[in-house]
């Protein structure tokens, strides 16, 4: 019975792999729910600070913050958000595709790019590819905390303040639904506020203490909330992408096992038939 042992070993190994992928799918499923909850919890803050910023943009202020002034883009800062771990389908690859497209466009326009990387995958990717990386943050875990992101954000906002970059962009996956995650390139600086509310015709805030310091504070918080939102959204994307990827891996393993089993049965049947015909042939000879 040639090759039947090999086939049996193969079936066993595929079964083991299937066990692992199934376990990963279950783990990702439970993590995904929590990640989605966190994403929903962070939304009110992002909404409220956007509203406040909309109000600020409508105020007839005597002071205009540099974060709200458009200037020609000679150098651009790019924050790239990825996951720390792999085995999440095309999630990070799709993010890199969007990032690389942006990088290529900037290169054609002779715009220099400074990179800030969040997540292990981005760091190892740009380590191979090269690039002007100024800040990184990895190992955020399943529950990313704002604390962990402040360093990276500060590096980029300081660069903007000092005029080393004229625009700050963000690439990350946005969560459409469990099956779909879409990588997106967004502008963080200069800030483009949404003026969706109608307020009084002519007014300004009472600023305590000074408009300059306060607006700086508010805008810094706004950028932080945007990046934080992107990171936790990316975490939710990671888990759901992994769940889908592992589900299809488990299904594929099942298909391979069925095929191998079929081959094994045929080989066994062929061996038995051969043996019988040999015995019959032998008996006829006697």
């Amino acid at each position, binding site marked *: 019975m040639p090759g039947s042992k090999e086939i049996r070993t193969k079936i066993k190994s595929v079964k083991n792999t299937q066990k692992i992928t199934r376990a990963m799918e279950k783990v990702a499923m439970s993590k995904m729910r929590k990640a989605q909850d*966190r994403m929903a*919890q962070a939304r009110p803050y992002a909404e*409220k600070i956007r509203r406040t910023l909309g109000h600020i943009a409508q105020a007839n202020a005597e002071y205009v913050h540099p974060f709200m002034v458009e200037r020609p883009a000679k150098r651009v800062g790019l924050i790239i958000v990825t996951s720390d771990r792999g085995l999440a389908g095309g999630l990070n690859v799709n993010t890199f595709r969007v990032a690389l497209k942006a990088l290529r466009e900037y290169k054609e326009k002779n715009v220099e790019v400074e990179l800030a*990387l969040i997540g292990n995958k981005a760091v190892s990717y740009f380590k191979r590819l090269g690039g002007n990386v100024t*800040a990184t943050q990895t190992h955020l875990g399943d529950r990313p905390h704002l604390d962990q992101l402040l*360093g990276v954000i500060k590096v980029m906002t300081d660069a903007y303040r000092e005029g080393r970059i004229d625009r700050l962009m963000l690439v990350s996956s946005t969560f459409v639904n469990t099956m779909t995650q879409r990588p997106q390139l967004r502008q963080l600086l200069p800030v483009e506020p949404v003026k969706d509310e109608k307020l009084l015709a002519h007014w300004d805030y009472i600023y305590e*203490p000074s408009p300059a310091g306060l607006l700086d504070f*508010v805008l810094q*918080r706004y950028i932080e909330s945007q990046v934080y939102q992107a990171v936790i959204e990316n975490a939710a994307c990671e888990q759901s992408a992994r769940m889908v990827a592992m589900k299809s891996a488990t299904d594929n393993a099942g298909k391979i096992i069925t095929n191998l089993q079929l081959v094994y049965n045929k080989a066994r049947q062929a061996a038995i038939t051969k043996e019988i015909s040999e015995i019959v042939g032998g008996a006829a000879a006697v």
Partner: protein
Amino acid sequence: MASIHVDIVSAEGQIHTGEAQMVFAPAEMGEVGIAPRHTPLLTKLVPGAVRVQQADGSELSFFVGGGILEVQPHLVTVLADSALRAKDADEAAALKAKQDAEEKLAGAKGDIDLAKAQAELIEAAARLQFVQKLKNASHR
């Protein structure tokens, strides 16, 4: 009776939303009280209690570890910080992110502990004060 809408949110979730007669908040220049139709105001908050007087006269208290207060005539928004913040700690974190980048891409640790500990101390003191006040109020 006139009322004002209050939203208290932090980066990790919504804390309170509703109508109020009066809102008190620990602003950087001293505690402020906000009644309906207050003039627009924008200020920083320090760690302390935000108190909301509701329409039925009852009072709600929330601890904030700093943040932003925005007032519109019909609306009060408290954007509370969830993370402990100190200026030096931010600087140190920025430095660390830069160092990380250099280390990882080529192949030292910043001294952020002191600044962080100070911020924690200020926050803890304010939190303690808040709890004590609550205790006293419930004894009376």
